[in-house]
């Protein structure tokens, strides 16, 4: 690669970088370093702080509710991500086979939920899961099943929150999957047709291997997104019943709101950060290793 420019543009570069660097320093780096420090202190809004070493972390790890929150987060991700991926995979195929006009309409239709806020989704789905007259129970009644207290029953609460999460994320997942599908050259399929391959073997030997990167990307972003979800349970259930829908971030958020011992909540947030931060780093690595994007 040739040198872009012989004279270094130090002054212009620094001037143009000032806003982003200053803002990120004040609102991301300082709070982060501050959080690291506080996590080693017995610190609250009302008293002198005291250095306690790893005590906050030990407390968090020994808190059965933290463990439960992590398990809840994992269960939630398992409810949301596979369902979303399978639906998106099927649906991307459907859109691809459609005519241009129809596929345009369908793409728009499935994308719209993506731009709806978690609050509005919660409001709608709380009504849908209403015990007496919600649509979910109306449908159950059609099959002769009795009304369920969807959001109040420990057996169904988490799944009931997973449904709006799938609804919100399914459109974008399908469209990314579709973009991946359209990137596969037609000639591969034509060659397969000449060989007499059926649609099933085309899927196994062409589509799935060539979609690998897209699927990986969607799995990782879907997983980190799902495990960090907390607006839906915050509004729909407040984390209940019996903490059954307390996702990790909701656990942390509830501690922020109700606890005077800030160190504990921050330590739990940082523990979670270690896991999520490494996952995001992997995504970035995968993405950045690809050659520049196509325009």
């Amino acid at each position, binding site marked *: 690669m040739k040198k872009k420019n012989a004279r270094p543009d130090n002054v212009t570069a620094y001037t*143009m970088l000032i806003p982003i660097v200053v803002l990120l320093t004040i609102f991301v780096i300082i709070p982060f370093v*501050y959080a690291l420090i506080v996590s080693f202190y017995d610190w609250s809004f009302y008293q002198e702080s005291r250095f306690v070493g790893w005590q906050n972390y030990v407390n968090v790890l020994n808190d059965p509710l933290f463990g439960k929150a992590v398990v809840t987060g994992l269960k939630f991700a398992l409810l949301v991500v596979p369902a979303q991926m399978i639906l998106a995979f099927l649906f991307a195929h459907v859109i691809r086979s459609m005519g241009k006009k129809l596929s345009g309409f369908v793409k728009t239709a499935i994308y719209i939920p993506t731009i709806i806020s978690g609050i509005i989704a919660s409001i*709608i789905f709380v009504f849908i899961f209403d015990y007496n007259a919600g649509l979910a129970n109306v449908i159950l009644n059609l099959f002769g099943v009795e009304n369920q207290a969807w959001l109040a029953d420990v057996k169904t609460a988490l799944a009931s929150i997973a449904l709006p999460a799938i609804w919100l994320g399914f459109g974008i997942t399908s469209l990314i999957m579709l973009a991946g599908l359209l990137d596969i050259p037609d000639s591969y399929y034509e060659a397969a047709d000449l060989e007499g391959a059926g649609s099933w073997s085309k899927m196994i030997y062409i589509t799935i291997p060539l979609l690998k990167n897209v699927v990986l990307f969607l799995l990782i972003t879907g997983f980190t997104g799902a495990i960090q979800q907390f607006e839906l349970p915050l509004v729909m259930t407040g984390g209940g019943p019996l903490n059954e829908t307390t996702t990790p971030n909701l656990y942390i*958020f509830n501690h*922020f709101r109700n606890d005077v011992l800030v160190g504990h909540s921050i330590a739990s947030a940082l523990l979670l950060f270690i896991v999520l931060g490494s996952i995001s780093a992997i995504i970035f690595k995968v993405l950045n290793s690809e050659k520049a994007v196509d325009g």
Partner: protein
Amino acid sequence: MKVKEQTVKTIMYVFGFLIAVAALFPLVWMVIAGFKAKNEVLVTPFRFFPEKWLFSNYSSILSDPMFLKSMGVTFMGAVLFAALSLIINSMAAYVFARLEFRFKRTLWVFVICTMFIPGMAILLTSFIVVTEMKMLDTLAVLVFPGVASAGHMFFIRQFYLNIPMALEEAALIDGANRWKIFTSIFFPMSYPVFVIVGIGSYLGFWNSFVWPTMTITNPDLFQIMQFLNTFRSERSTEMGMLMAGSTLAAIPTIILFLIFQKYIIKGIKISGLK
């Protein structure tokens, strides 16, 4: 063989149609519930359409000064937020895509690192920082903390890397400075990527809920999602009005999306994965 293919096709179309309907159903139900009397939103036996179409929910939420104020303030904030986000992040994107300078690598790592810090890890300490800066209950507390974004910067940079160098070389030879090249060549060419990042920022602001509830207590500055959630808990019997309010709060984002959907859907392709 032919018949089988036809059946597969029909099944696919039916499936596609059903999914599209399922995707829109909750929203359509919301819009229609906004026309129902308050005791009719949840009624047994279930009825999709109202017995009598009422416009009173929409008209009374529209004459609620708090609702209008909240829509206005959120809209203003979101537009400001999106504009600043484009300016700040695209400048940095340009610098990292094109300029050579000392400490480039260090600054790059510094900026990119912030992408891996989840919001929840710094939520409370950010709150303390903005409290110390006396920013609570101002529009600034909603706009500034999230506006610089390594993710958006990275996305714009990827786009800039694909702009052919030849375009600016002529200008450089003519003696145009870097700043000029950025504003007169890169800025106008950024339209497609700006639409995506701008709408992403706008949506993020419009839909945000947790940060406003922590930092805004003055009802005059209530953000729209904050307003809706407060309405939901304080006037829980006014279900029709709540649905009308939610509908009206969703409409600006839907309109924005419909206007720019061509770019957004295309943007999914350039989001950097193959």
